[in-house]
Every structure is written in C-alpha cells, then in structure tokens.
C-alpha cells in the first residue's frame, strides 16, 4: 500500500489510519493458479455471486459462475463454497504449485429450503389475535442462507414461529433489488406480496445478524436483498405442481427465463396460483395468484437497465385462535371460530384480500473495474384488506364468545346443556350466517338498518422509492460503499362495507358512544361532516384517515480485507417526517380528528462495526457491534388514529445497543458456528387496540418506555460422516426479557373516560412469541443419482404466553393482602409446554438430456403431535371484580399435526 493513496479522501485517511495494523500484504503480479465454474447440479446453469473460501482467501464467482485464485501455497488446500439457495460444499484440493482447472463444480440446491417446500407459508398465513395484530412470521425464515444455523432454523423451526434472537421482524431489513420493502408503518417486511414467486425471488444476498453486507448497511437482525434481475435468473422453462394439506392444497407454478441473450435482452416471467377450498384447518380457503415479469436490457458492457413488475392478488380465509375450553369442546385443537355455514357452504368471516403490485426500474452500472453504481426507482400501490363481522345492538355473532361457552354458566346442569349443544350443533359451534341474514331481514321489515354486516378493514399503501448505491474497491484490500434512499409514503386506512348480509343499509354511528352518551347526537357520529349516514356496500364508514411519511436515509461503510481477516465500519443517518390526515370529523374528538395533524420529525443514526479474524487456519473469530437510534414506527405513534390525531405522551427514538461474538470452523468435514450475543432495547413503545369487555368500547392501550434485553447463544454444525451422510445439529438458547416497568396510557375510543396512566409491573417478564430454547438434530443423506433424504428431530421450550399488561398493575391486585397467593397467580407469566417434533423429507431428480424432473416429498410432525402450542396470548380482559382468571382464559394456536408437501417439478 503506497503512501500516495492516503491523501485522496479524508474519510479514507481516517480508515487507513485505523487499518495500518492489518497491512501485511505485499502486492505481486497475479497469476491464475486455480480455477473452476460453479453450476447448479440439476440444471447445470452457472451460479453467480457464490462465496469461495480457500485457506485464508475469499473470492466470489462472476455472472458466468467462474472463479479463479492465485497466490496459493502448495499443499492440501480446503475449498469451501457457499451460495445462497444451495447447500454448502467443501472439497480438498492437492495443489502442487501447477495451475489447476477444477472444471465444473455442481452445487445442490436447497430443495428443502423453507420457501420451496411450503412450510414457511404456514407461518406466513398464521392469523392474528383479538387485537388484530398479526402474529409475525418467524423471523428465521426470512434469512434462510447457507449458514447451517440459519437454514435449519428457517425450515425446521418455522412452524413454531421461532424468531432468531427473539427479534421482531422490524429488525430485519428486506430489500427488493436494493429498494427497501419493509412496511413504512410498522417496519415489518411484507413477505406475502411476492408469495408464489419462489422461482424468481430465489437469488438473495443475505447477511445474518449484524454481519457485514456489501451493498447495504443492514439491520440488527440481518438483511435480505432479493435480486430478481432477469440476467441472473437461470435460463429455464419450469413447470411445477405441488400438493399439500397445510394452508393451500394445490400450487401450480410456471417460470420462463431466457437468461442474458446474445442480443442483450433478458426476460423472465413467472406466474402461479395457489388454491384450495380447505387446508389443514377447517374453513380456510386459499386463492392466490402471482405474476412476475422482468425485462433487462444490456445497454453496453457496463450498463444495464431492468424493469420489474410483480404482484400477488390473494384471497384467503383465516384461522382464529380459541381458548382451550373451545378446543376441548370441539374435540380438536384446530377448531376455527371464524367460519360457519351459509346455505350449506362454508363461509369464512375473516378473509384477507390484497393485491399490492410493485413496479421497479433498476440501473446496474459499472463505472470502472472498481466502481459499481446501482440505482433504483420503484412504485408500489394497490389494496390490502381484511374482513370481519361487525354488528349493531345485536348479539355477538362469534360462536366462541365467552358468554356462549359452558364455563360462563354457573349452574352445573345448564353448563352441561350448553356443552352438549356446542358439541352437537355446528350452527352453534360455528358462525350461523343464515341466522344473521334472518335477523337483518326482520330489521328490513321495520325499515331499519343492518344488525350484522361484514366489513373490510383496508390499509392501502402507496409509495415511491428512490435508491442509489456506490461500491468502490479502492484497492485489493479496501472497499468503500455508500448509498442513499428516499421514500415518500401514504397509507390510507378506512373501512368498507363488504357485505350488508341482506340488509338495506348500515348506519354510520358509534354504538358504544351512542349508548354511553344517550341523547348526544354529536358524540355518536363517526363522521360529523356526514352525520347519520346510511352506508351501502363498498362505501367507506367508521374511520378514514391517511398517514404520510417522507424518509431519507444515507449510509457509508468501508471494509478492509486481509489474509488474516477483515474489518468494517459503517454509519447511517435516517431522517423522516410523518403526519396524519383525518378524512372524517369524529364526534368524540371533533377538534383533533379532521385534517392534517402536526408534522413530526425524527433524526436517527446507526453506527456499526465488526471484523473477522483467523486465529489459525480454518478457525475464525468474528465480532460485530452496533448502536442505533430508531424513531418509533408510525403504527406506534398515533395512539388512536381511527378517531383522532393524538400521539404518544413521550415522542423519543428507541435506542438499541448490540454486540455479538462468534467462533467459526470451516473444515471440509466440519462446519461450525458458535455465537454469543447481547442486545439492549430502550424506550420502545407499543400501541394495542382492543375491545374492552368491561368498558364496552374499543380502548387503545399504550405502553411507553419499554426496555428489553436479548441475550443468548447460537450453535450450528454439520459434520460429514461419510461423503454422502452428514450429521446436523443446531441449538439456540436465549434469555429475552423485559427489564423495566413501563408506563401504560389507556385511551377510550368512545371518549367515555379521560385517558388514564398506570405503571405496569413486568420487569423480568419473558419476551413472548418465540421459543427461547430451540434445538434440532438431523441426519442428511445426499446419495447418488440425485437422491437425498433428511431426517430432523426438533425440540422447543421456554415459549411464553403474551401477557395482558392490565393484569400486572396495582389495580389488578387491589384489595389483596400481602402474601395472598392470588397475587402470584394473577401476575405470573405462563410458559407453554415444551414440544418435540420429527420431520423427514425425501427427494429425487431424474435427468434426460436437457429435461429434468424432480419429486420432493416432505412430512412434518411425523409423530402427529397435536398438542404443540405455537402461540399463546392472554385476552386483553381481566375480571377486576372477582379476579377470576378462568373468566378470560388465554387463547392458543396449535401447530399442525402430521402434514405433508409434495412437489413435482419439470424443467428444461
């Protein structure tokens, strides 16, 4: 490294000063000594962007799958290859010093990868709780990569909603061709928007945890950049059919990609449909289409333009959680309260219905051999809705409403009668649609409005994204990258009448305010500008507001690579402004519901650094650390956005400090990673909205100033027993806890009471929603003639029930003397039972010339264990008077019993 480089840039100088200690390398004329081409085992198409490690060197393959190495010392060399979507590959090369051509090296696709075998989709369609917040897909599956721990966690842990390191999905950054696609309002990746496009979203750049990522700054829980660039799609025509008993029954997928053609065009098309009238759970229908079209034009050797359009119009019925009482009565842990018969057909009251297409324009530019410049422009739009029953001064239509269950009856005989009726009549156990119609008809006869309707709660998003990234390889050792992103977003939130259920209209007033303020014709109005409106189908009602966000992010990072290791450091700035625009003047809040709210500004920073050091050959130590501040997500800022513009009492950015240290071994027969990590979250806030049974109104329950700590261990290894048989073992142990007593603010949607504040005693509570212990032991046989067999035994424990904060307040234990055992009963957190499952899969491929046929069959939960609770949450209701916990018991979701996925693929 010459001195003349030092004075070019101030930044460079700073970094160079830092790295002087690493300067060990002397430059020599390069001569290729070892080369080869990586290809897909089944299609023989080249694999680009694969990482190849040999001894202490790391290189990657080019777009033709080609790699070459120089400066090697003679001897037995371990070669280690990692490529996203493929199983890791290792071999030993005896290098004599003479140039060697390794020829074609075939990698085996991760056919078992979570996405391909449909298992992940269980998690992705799992349904929300009472408070409408969807259970997040296990974050693990967003990061299936060539890391053994991550890939095993992705598919064997996903049915348990395992979250890597206990992180919520907002901590995982997902990009589509470099453009951020996390939901602007809650930070979560909207994975389902490209559901059914597995073939064309297979290319990914993944970084786990806080690991370095070349093109992005990344996030706390890792990042995934999906690359749909047509020239990188393998050239193929592919047709596949899948059969499953999970969420959908059938899947048809067709993909056609030309690869980069000699005339400079590359085209990639994919379309699919996933459908079924009923999956594993009763009443769940599935009807999802998906389309993708990518066109790339090579302008010259250095520049390419790509246009991408995709979307996934989906309608599917949802599964509702239930209490154990309801499960026991229906004699199945897969009872689904969301459906019922209408004229003999099963109808689901909760239907997800969305189609949010995205159009992207990408520019890939190589300004020089060392300078890469990529740009992106995207727009996404469409609709996203979910239906639910609504009712006006009429009995609760939900069959599992607690007053309809035997436990509500005080008399033994009545309890038995209720139980018998529940068991014997499907019209009692499920929604009785026909009856809802009859009640509406009777209302029609009086000229009155609907008693029951199906409403569609919409959240339509419109966003524009611009992104620009520069990668500059300053010299062989130093790389500098940076980028900027701008996002302009509008989220429209409103309700539509989906179905009047035979009635003539719906009166748009708040029945809870109408009841609590009898005679007050103002307060009852949802829209004072259009009072007492009679609403018809497909018209907006209830609430109508937009949130707007403008966000600017800029980042820069640098990486130093040397034989002994590498080191990187990065910094990012995020500035944003958001506000709410009310489109209805709410009768409870006439002065702060209509029009634009105040604009809120946040400035945040991220600092990130880390490095890998080879302590001796094939043994590495990796250390990463980061500090970031993060503005609260819009979803957690407005405490009752449906009715007013009020925000959190304290508007501060959340603070995150995190560190991790790993030990890695990369032997041809042994691949191992062991990691310890520790993360501290401070000043988090959460807003929950739910119907409060005692107060008989919607309330918003706002927790602010939450502190959490996430610490734990990760272990993953794969040991080759023979060339075909290997042993896999992974384990995660975490300790994810709340570390303080946050403040809760309770706001009543009907305005019947002023906001109240209370302390919530949840210090040392476990963070719910993921098993904190998870382990899997697997055997993998990858035999000749494209045959493979996998067997995995999995164990999960320390999964905790999501708690109702109100049960951990002084009000909840009021009037109980010190030492009263009831205090512990009320306040303690429930742990779900541990679980053991066994999975297996078998796959076989056949090849005739250029035709490939493959057949995969996987069975999960072979032992048919139907008692595995994957998620549990306490109802947001508490019997303050009698302190009877049995009155509002927790609700659970159970993991599927034995389930299968069969896939038949044909390609040429």
């Amino acid at each position: 490294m010459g001195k003349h480089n030092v004075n070019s840039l101030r930044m460079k100088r700073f970094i160079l000063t830092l790295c002087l200690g690493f300067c060990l390398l002397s430059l020599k004329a390069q001569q290729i000594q070892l080369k080869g081409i990586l290809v897909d085992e089944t299609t023989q198409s080249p694999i680009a962007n694969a990482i190849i490690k040999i001894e202490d060197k790391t290189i990657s393959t080019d777009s033709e799958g080609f790699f070459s190495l120089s400066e090697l010392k003679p001897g037995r060399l371990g070669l280690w290859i990692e490529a996203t979507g493929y199983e890791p590959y290792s071999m030993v090369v005896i290098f004599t010093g003479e140039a060697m051509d390794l020829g074609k090296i075939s990698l085996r696709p991760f056919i078992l990868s979570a996405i391909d075998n449909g298992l992940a989709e269980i998690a992705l369609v799992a349904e929300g709780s009472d408070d409408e917040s969807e259970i997040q897909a296990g974050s693990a599956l967003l990061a299936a990569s060539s890391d053994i721990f991550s890939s095993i966690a992705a598919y064997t842990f996903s049915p348990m909603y395992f979250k890597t390191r206990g992180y919520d999905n907002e901590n995982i950054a997902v990009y589509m061709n470099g453009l951020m696609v996390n939901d602007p309002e809650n930070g979560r990746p909207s994975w389902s928007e490209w559901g059914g496009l597995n073939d064309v979203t297979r290319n990914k750049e993944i970084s786990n945890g806080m690991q370095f990522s070349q093109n992005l700054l990344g996030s706390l829980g890792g990042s995934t950049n999906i690359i749909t660039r047509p020239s990188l799609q393998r050239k193929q025509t592919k047709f596949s059919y899948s059969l499953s008993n999970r969420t959908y029954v059938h899947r048809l997928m067709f993909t056609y990609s030309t690869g980069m053609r000699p005339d400079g065009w590359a085209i990639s098309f994919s379309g699919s449909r996933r459908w079924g009238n009923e999956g594993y759970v009763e009443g769940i229908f599935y009807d999802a289409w998906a389309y993708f079209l990518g066109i790339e034009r090579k302008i010259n050797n250095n520049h390419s333009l790509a246009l991408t359009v995709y979307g996934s119009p989906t309608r599917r019925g949802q599964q509702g959680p239930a209490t154990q009482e309801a499960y026991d009565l229906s004699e199945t842990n897969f009872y689904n309260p969301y459906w019922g018969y209408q004229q003999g057909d099963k109808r689901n009251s909760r239907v997800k219905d969305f189609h949010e297409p995205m159009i992207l324009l990408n520019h890939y530019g190589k300004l020089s051999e060392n300078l890469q410049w990529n740009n992106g422009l995207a727009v996404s739009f469409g609709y996203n809705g979910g239906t639910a029953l609504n009712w006006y001064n009429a009995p609760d239509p939900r069959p599992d409403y607690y007053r309809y269950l035997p436990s509500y009856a005080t008399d033994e005989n009545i309890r038995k009668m209720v139980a018998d009726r529940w068991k014997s009549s499907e019209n009692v156990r499920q929604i009785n649609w026909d009856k809802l119609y009859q009640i509406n008809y009777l209302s029609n006869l009086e000229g009155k409005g609907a008693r029951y309707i199906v409403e569609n709660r919409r959240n339509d998003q419109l966003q524009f994204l611009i992104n620009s990234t520069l990668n500059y390889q300053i010299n062989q050792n130093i790389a500098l990258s940076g980028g900027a992103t701008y996002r302009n977003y509008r989220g429209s939130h409103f309700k539509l009448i989906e179905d009047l259920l035979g009635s003539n209209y719906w009166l748009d007033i708040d029945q809870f305010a109408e009841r609590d303020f009898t005679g007050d014709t103002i307060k009852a109005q949802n829209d004072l500008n259009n009072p007492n409106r009679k609403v018809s189908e497909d018209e907006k009602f209830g609430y109508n507001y937009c949130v707007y966000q403008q966000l600017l992010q800029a980042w820069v990072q640098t990486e130093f690579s040397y034989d002994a290791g590498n080191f990187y450091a990065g910094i990012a700035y995020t500035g944003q402004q958001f506000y709410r625009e009310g489109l209805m003047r709410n009768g409870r809040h006439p002065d702060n519901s209509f029009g634009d709210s105040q604009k809120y500004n946040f400035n945040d920073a991220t600092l990130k650094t880390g490095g890998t050091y080879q302590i001796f050959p094939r043994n590495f130590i990796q250390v990463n650390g980061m500090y970031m501040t993060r503005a609260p997500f819009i979803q957690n800022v407005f405490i009752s956005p449906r009715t007013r513009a009020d925000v959190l009492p304290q508007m501060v950015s959340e603070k995150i400090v995190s560190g991790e240290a790993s030990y890695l071994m990369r032997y041809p027969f042994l691949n191992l990673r062991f990691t310890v990590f520790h993360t501290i979250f401070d000043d988090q806030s959460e807003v929950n909205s739910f119907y409060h049974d005692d107060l008989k109104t919607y309330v918003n329950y706002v927790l602010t100033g939450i502190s959490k700590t996430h610490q734990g261990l990760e272990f993953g290894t794969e040991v080759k027993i023979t060339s075909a048989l290997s042993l896999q073992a992974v384990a995660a142990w975490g300790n994810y806890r709340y570390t303080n007593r946050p403040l809760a603010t309770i706001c009543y949607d009907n305005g019947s009471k002023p906001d109240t504040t209370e302390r919530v005693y949840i210090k040392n509570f476990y963070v719910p929603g993921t098993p904190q212990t998870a382990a899997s032991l697997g055997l993998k046989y990858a035999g000749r003639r494209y045959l493979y067999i996998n067997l995995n035994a999995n164990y999960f424990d320390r999964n905790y029930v999501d708690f109702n904060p109100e049960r951990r307040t002084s009000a909840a234990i009021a009037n109980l003397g010190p030492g009263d055992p009831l205090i512990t009963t009320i306040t303690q957190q429930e742990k779900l039972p541990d679980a053991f499952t066994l999975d297996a899969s078998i796959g076989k491929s056949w090849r005739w010339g250029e035709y490939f046929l493959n057949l995969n069959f996987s069975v999960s939960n072979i032992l048919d264990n139907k008692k595995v609770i994957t998620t549990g949450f306490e109802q947001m209701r508490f019997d303050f008077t009698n302190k009877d916990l049995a009155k509002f018991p927790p609700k659970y979701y159970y993991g599927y019993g034995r389930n299968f996925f069969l896939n038949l693929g044909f390609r040429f």
Partner: protein
Amino acid sequence: MNFSNTKLFFFIGLMAVAAVFTGCVKGDFDEPPINIPTVDFKANTTIAQLKASYTGILDSISDDIIIKGVVVANDESGNLYKQLVIQDETGGIMLLIDKSYLYTEYKLGQRIYVKCKGMYLGDYNKLIQLGYIYNNAIGRLPEVMVEDHIFRDSLPGKVPAPVNIDVANNNSAYINMLVRIENVHFLEVGVPFAPQGASATNRTIADASGNELIVRTSQYANFASMLTPSGYGHLQGILTIYQTTYQLLIRDTADIIGFSGSTPPPPPSGDYVFPDPNFPTISSLEENFDGITNQTDISISGWTNEATKGNRKWQGKIYQTEYYAQATSYNSTDAENVTWIVTPPVIYSNNLILSFKSAMAYYKHDGLSVWILTNYTGNPETATWTQINATLANSSSGDNNWVASGDIPLSNFVPTNYTGNIYIGFRYEGTQTNTTTYRIDEVKINTTGGGGGGGGTVTPVSEIHEMFDNVQNDVNIEIEGWLNLAETGTRFWRGKIFNTEKYAQATSYKTLDNQNICWLITPPVMFEGGKLLNFKSAKAYWVHDGLSVWISTDFNGSNLTTATWTPINATLAGKANADHEWVSSGNISISNYVPQGFTGNFYIAFKYIGDAVNTTTYRIDEVNIEPVK
C-alpha cells in the same frame, strides 16, 4: 426453443390452464331466502288461564301447557332488559329470558308460542312472570333452553291496539298488557325520565282529576336522558305492578303522545265538534289505524269521528293482521246512517298529495265519499266541503279487496294561492237496505304520494289479467299486489288515459334526473307447472330502446338488488314501429325461464331505463299471465 419444446410448452400450458380453471375456490355465497317461521302445534291454554293457575308460590310447570301471544314489548329501547311482554285476548305476561338483544328476533307484533312445561311461574313483588328458577326465586330462562320453549310463528304482524284504561279504575286485568292512558300530565316537568346513577327512576303522572300513576324507567333506556314533557298528553306502555303499586313501562318515545303546551285538549264529546283550530297543525299525515281497538268506535288524537245521522260511527276493525277503519249500516237499527271521520288539520302546501285505500263488502250501494274542507275559519256553520273524486272500491272491486285511491294532488280542490289548513273527511252513508260495508286504511297526506307502490298483499296469484283500467291519468300506478319502484331517479310508471285507452307508461321525457330506472313488477305468480305471458307494448318519439322485461324467482318482494333477474325475450315496440302502435309480445312460455321441476312463484318486471337524452316513451297494456292450455 425448438419445435418439440414448443409443443411441450403448449401441452404444459394447456394442463395448467385446465387445472387452474377447474380448481374453483368458493367465493360468492347464496343469500338465504327469508324464513317464515311456523309451528306445527297449537296453544291449549290462554294467558289468563296460565296466570290464574299461579298459586303464589314459585313452581315449575309440569303439564304440557302451550300458550300463544303477540309481543307487545321487548328490549329494543333498553327500558326492558332480557324481558318480553306478550299478550293474547285474555291477558298478558312477562317472559324472562337470559339473552340480550331479544328484539332482534322478537319484534313487536311477533306471534310466539311458549311451551311452558319445564319453565317456572313466579312473581316479582306480585308481578307474575314466566321464566326459570334462580336462587329459589323466579329467574330467566337460560339461553340454551330458549329454542326448546319459545317458538316464533310467521313474520311480525301488527301490534294489538292498546287498551284505554282509566287511572281511577281497578286495572288488574290489564297487568302486563299494552295500555293507553289519555289526558295525563307529569307532576315533575323537565326532569330526566331516568338519571344515570340509579338503576331505575319513578316519575308520577296524574289525570285531570288528580288520580296518579307511576312511570318507571331504567337508566339503560335510550330515552333515559329525555326530559319529562309539559302539558297534557297520552301515554302508552306496559302496565305492571310492584306489590300494590301500578307502574307504567314506556316502551320508547313513540309511547309519549301529544304532550304540548299547557292547555288540556278538549274532553271527548259525543257531539259533533270541528277539531280545535289550536290543535297542533302538521304538514303531513300518515294513519294506518294501527292504534285502533277491534269493534270499537275510533278515537284517534286529533281526528274527529262523528255520526251526523243515526248512531253508527267509524269503527276499528282487525282482520288477521290488518287494522283498518270501517263503517257499515248492516244490521243497523237506525233508519239512516251518516258518519264522518275527519283528519286533523294539515298545513296546506301546493304539492300536497292525498292517498289512501278503500275496500267494500256485501255490495248494495255506493256509500263512501271523500271530501276536503278548506275555508274553515273557526265557525263550523260557514265551513263548506268539496268532494274529491278518488278511485274508490265499488261494485266491481270484489269483497274485501283493497283499492288504491291513487295519488290525488290536493291543489285540484283548493283555491289558488290558498294558505291555511285543510281537513280530509271520509263520509259514509247507508240505510237499512243500503248496507254495503266500507273500509279505509293507509291514509296519507304528504308531498310524495303513496310511495309509488301498490305494495300490500304478497299473496301469490294464479293468473294475471291487468288492463290498467283503474289507472288515473298522469298518476303513479298503484295496483294492489304490484310494485312500482324507482330504482334511480324520481320517475315511476304512470297511468295514462288516451281517448278511451288506459295503460301504463314510462318516459324520461323532460326528466330532471341524471337517469331514470323504474320497474313495474307483478305480484308473485304461482308457476304451477307452466304459465304463458303476453302483453302489448307501444312507443313514442323513439330515440332509444328503453323497455325490457324480466323474470325473477327469488325476488323477496322489496329488494331489487338481491334478486336474480333474467331478461325475457319478448317482441317489443321499437324503432321500426309507428308511434303509439301496439305491438303484441307474443306468447312467452315461462317454462323457458325457470329450472326444470320448478314449483315456486315468479315475478315479471317491466323495466324502463332512460335519461335526459334517451327519452323514448314506452307503454304497456293488457298484461296476461295464464296457465298453458
């Protein structure tokens, strides 16, 4: 891609398309038809008998006792909670049911049967109730048992008229019945019926003689915060008792009638008196005689019912679910009868329209006439009545068939620039030989007319022969059983008389609406294995084809949009025809439009669509639906 690949590609594509389109996912659901509940058993005990069997000690009912009654009060306003009050001709009783929002299923006027065996009869401070046992006292029937004990029968009908009671009398026979107390006032005026904080509040009313009664209201009633009115008026509600104290439970604000000012209304009098000119005048009126008592002289606040010759007055009549006013000289001992029933004063405006319906039975003579009074100035002697030529039931109407009056613009009978009040009087005259019975109902005075629909009966018919001979020129068509609906815009099908021809016409000529869609729909016709339809149509001033003919087998009689309408292929007047030329539709077999083996009813609809540009006038006449011969 070479040739064989192309073939393969097509093969795969074809397979995919076939698989995808056969793999249907259920998306649309049939709307259930309205369910008309029936019971296959009979009541064997009256409510009075059931109450009489109560010994004063809570006991379960072990006999197979079945009572029936009509719901006269429910929980809709919140003044009653988990309670229904039903009554039959003999008395009323309160049912206790452990279920909220009972009113969604048990509407006022709903006839229900109660299988009492296994239920409990008890009393709450002397108010007899039918329910279940709870803590050794009378309690609510658990929800799970409701379907074994309480049965709805048919759709809700009319609510029985309240019994007029006098506070001074012993009213124990009327406990748990719908009663009416006239000319009373609140002792505390301007206070809430039921302030929040107390579960229920007593207010006292008194009649002119000072006899008092408690009005008890729950804090959960949706009118709890309403203030007690001043002045005298009438109250309706359920009469209950607490130990020895009578209480009135108002059902909702419609039970509070006529309170205004501080002057008590004039006492009822047998002498002919014109209505008090100070009676609060109204700008529209609708009277369905729902408040009448069977076989009793009609007494409606503001109305006058007077016999000017003989002793017969207009009486209330209930026939099945129909309530109406009737006058007759049948079996009269008077040599001659003349009786008037007169509306309250209505403030006149230029576009006021009168509509009503009339029926007759046992025809002997034309005895009904309709009159309007305009120049009433306070001196009855100077008042003059003008006769209104309305369509009335006559010798050809058939017994008991309702005949719509049509929409009668009152401006035809009122001096130009008239301001003031008008009264409408229905005059019946008869003798011992001229004994025809006349009935009237649905008297409306408003600016929109009868609502555009004949409506009324939904009794399916076997044949239709509609010549539109009873239409009035330029008046919206109202024919019993037919529906005349304006789906979009304000134009309806109208009657037209041209020379001697009478027919139905629809047009958008000179419309002010963005669009006109109007429907003229027959009564339900029984298919009975096959029917033929024919009619004739004509057009004038052709610019567009605006007429179409439709059939529906699932129309519910009111909601156009939930029904499936199938177009009928008929020969219609079109561009090629001369203006006003009648074109026969030809015989259309309904069998072509219903599924094989169809056994239900069907409706035929004539639909007109037009707008300010597409203005062709369409006419139809001689609509015949008859069995296939």
